[in-house]
Every structure is written in C-alpha cells, then in structure tokens.
C-alpha cells in the first residue's frame, strides 16, 4: 500500500496561487475557505531584499493530533495515509481546528454556503452543484484530492502548478520522485518540534 506524500520545491514556487484556484475549483470551496494557501513574506535588508513563498496544505500527519482529539471519530486516516473528515460524523466542536499546529482546518459556517461568491445571497450554478458536498457546522480540510488519487491522478494543485513546485508520490517507494527529492535535498517537515510527523516536505 502506498503512503502518499507531497514535496514543495521552494526554489520553483513563484507565488502565482494557481494551486489555490485549482483547489477551490476542484473541491468547489465556498468563500473564505482554502485547502491550500501560499504564504508570503519579505526577507532580507535593502538592497538585498526578496520575497519568499511558502505553499501550505494539510500535512496528512502520521501522528495526526486532529485525529487523536476528535471526540466522534469523524477524522480518520486511510491505509494510504490520507487524513479525511467524515462530515456525517463531525459535530463541529472545533477541537481538531485548535489541535492542528498548521491551522489547516476550517469550520464551514452556514453563511459561507448561503452568501455566495458575490456576497449577495445568490448562488451561482457552480456553487449550487458544489455546496451539496458540504454540511454547515462541520469541519473540512484538504483531502489530497483522494478521489483523483484513487483514479490514478495527481491532486488538482499538483496537476495545475505551472512550475512543478509541487510533487506528489509514494513516500514508501524508494524509487519515487518524492523520496529521491527528499533524500537529495534533505527535505524538511514543517514544525517538526510538534511531533506530528507530516507527510509533506519542503526542499530548497
């Protein structure tokens, strides 16, 4: 069984946010909700100043604190390592939101589903067909596009990235591109001090 993971090549990310747009389109995410974000910051001192871009996503941690603290079992880890939320079981207590060190979970409020893209209470046809996937008051997060992965495709953000800054693959396969990149570039996990063992790595 594969253990899916992702590598972010920070040398390649240009901060275009195509990944975020593709994700919103693939998952029909309502206003105010992102499964992936590209954080940015200016670093250095004039004249040697640059802007860094840090793509972020649910890290599908091996020791996921969100799963441990969930009181209903709504958050679970599949055999292939993808952490998902069963919104039929979720009670919207928010415990997983405050337990995730990476702030990658969002509770869907009813206004997010009702206000619509243009914030006027009218839903576009795209939203009407997409909103049925969500239940107000429950928590959602990145799914690694598990339907696409099950069909043998890459997640939407990976498929869309124009610079190939996102690489998806099997962490258990010694010959996979993600494993090779992590080994060659000494891939680093975000916030390793939190002891969550993320399945997302950053290389530079």
């Amino acid at each position, binding site marked *: 069984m594969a253990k899916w993971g992702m590598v972010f090549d920070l040398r390649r990310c240009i901060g275009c946010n195509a990944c975020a747009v593709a994700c919103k389109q693939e998952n029909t995410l309502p206003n105010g909700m992102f499964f992936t974000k590209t954080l940015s910051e200016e670093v250095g001192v004039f004249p040697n100043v640059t802007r860094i871009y840090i793509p972020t996503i649910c890290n599908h941690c091996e020791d996921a604190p969100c799963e*441990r603290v969930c*009181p209903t079992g709504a958050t679970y880890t599949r055999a292939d390592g993808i952490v998902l939320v069963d919104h039929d079981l*979720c009670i919207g207590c928010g415990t997983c939101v405050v337990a995730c060190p990476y702030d990658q979970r969002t509770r869907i409020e009813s206004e997010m589903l009702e206000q619509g893209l243009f914030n006027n209470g009218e839903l576009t046809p795209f939203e009407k067909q997409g909103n049925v996937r969500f*239940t107000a008051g429950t928590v959602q997060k990145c799914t690694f596009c598990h339907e696409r992965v099950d069909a043998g495709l890459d997640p939407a953000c990976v498929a869309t990235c124009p610079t190939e800054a996102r690489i998806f693959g099997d962490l258990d396969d010694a010959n996979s591109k993600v494993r090779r990149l992590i080994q060659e570039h000494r891939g680093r996990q975000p916030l390793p001090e939190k002891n969550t063992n993320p399945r997302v790595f950053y290389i530079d």
Partner: protein
Amino acid sequence: MHSRHFMNEEEDFKVGPRSQKAWGVHIATAFFFGEAGAGLYFVSQFFDFTIGMSIALLMVLIGKGGGHLVHLGQPMRGWRALAKVGTSWISRGLLAIAVFVFTGALHVLNLNTAFMPQALSALVSLVAVAACLVIMVYQGFAMSHSSAITLWSTGLMPVASLTYGLLNGVLLTLVLGFNTPLLNDHPEIFQLLQAAAIALMLYGLVMVLSLLHGAKYGSEGGQKSVELLVRGAFAGWFVPVVILLGFVVSALFMSFAPRNLFSMIAVAGTELTGYYAFRVLMFKVGTYDPVMSFAHHFRR
C-alpha cells in the same frame, strides 16, 4: 468592518503567528460554568450542603451544557462526542458530565429522602465526586492535549483548571452558605473556607504567571500570546481584570473586609469576573506558531 475583515485575511497569508478563531466566548462560558459548578459541588458535598450541590448541578447541566450546545456546529449530533473516550478528552469530559449529573442528582435526592441503602449511597456520592473532579480538570487536559498552541500546551493548564474550580467552589459556598446553618452554626467552617480561598488565590496567581512565563519562552506563538496579554490588545483586560480584580482585590477583600453577606458577594463577584475574563482571554490570545519555523532560512 470590511477593513478589519481584510486585515484578518491578510494575516492568514503571512508567514508568522496566527490567531486561533475556532474557540471563543461560547466555549469559554461553558468552561466557566463547568469549573465553577463542579468546584461548588465538590466543596458542598464535603459539607453535605444540599443547596450548593443543587445549584452546582444546574450550573453544569444548563450553563456548561448550554454553552457547549451553542458552540457546536451540529448540536443535534452532540451525543456522538461519547464515541472516543479512549483518546479524546472531549469524550471523557462529556462522559464525566453525564455521570456527574446522574449520580449527583441521586445523591442530593438521597440526602433529602434517604431512599438508598447506606453502601449504595456512599458509592453514588463517591462516583459523583470523582466525576466532578474530572470535570474540574478535563478542560485543562483538552486544551493542553495538542502542541499546536503553546500557551495552552502545558501541564500547568489542568492544574490551573483545578485551582480555579476549587477557588470558585469555596467562594460560591461562602456566598450560598451565608446565613444558613452551615456557616452560622459552624464558624470554624467559615474560617476554614476563608483561609482556603486566600491560599487558592495566591496559588492561582502564581499559576497564571507561570503559564505566561512558560509560554513566553516556549515558542514564537507563545511569545505572541503573552505580548497580546501583557502589552497588546488585551492588556487592558488581562492585568486589571484577571490579575488585579480576580486575585489581588478579591484576596484583600477576603482578608480585611467585615464578615457579612455583602463582602462575600463582593469577593465572589470580583474573583468570578477575573476568572471569566481569564477563560475568554485564553481563547482570544491563543496563537499558532508560524507554519514554517525555518522559513527565514530560505533564500537569504
């Protein structure tokens, strides 16, 4: 409103500490009633003070239960929170609330009607006290269970919950028991509770300062939380209300004010106000560490 919303979104896209927004006033209110009610029950049962026990049960059932239900996104499914007692402190807490309300009500009923055999009565009272102790501490464990928010992620949090719970219980017993046989006929109980209250206030003050000390030197997120409390947006609430009103003024009142009902209400009022502010502020200043703690090392 629009600009404020815009600024929040800006913060969400920066590499840096970010505020948690999932837990707020509703859950703080639930925690407040949970700890105050469980503490009141614990002290009241020690003295078989049925008025205190009855009010404590209502505080936990209505105040804590109501606060949680208002907070939940799907309140009708709330019962499902009992499913993961093995790993989740929320599940353990809900189980403790159910056991506490049931056995506590049985015990109060039995004190008035003596319908249970003595052995069973002792067992029920023991279970009720155990459950109320769990309610007093589990909220601290629930907050410290994950390392996400440094201010909360400390072993001191359950101890702080227990300290506040006991302190609230002692002060509410002094108010509710004033002009009742409990305190009128037993002046030594009043003195005992008064000494306990002052000791718990001093201990609680040190506990809160220790929480801040640990967070400040724990991580960047913890440092941000402490800054918000001591010098930032919430300093106007934290220092005057939580520290001065909640501990200093109430301890001075308890030590030097004349022994009457007004003084007891004033002490309990100041302490409970400080405690409620503490609960709300703990959630308001909860801050995640920067997602990429090593981000600054890139592209230098």
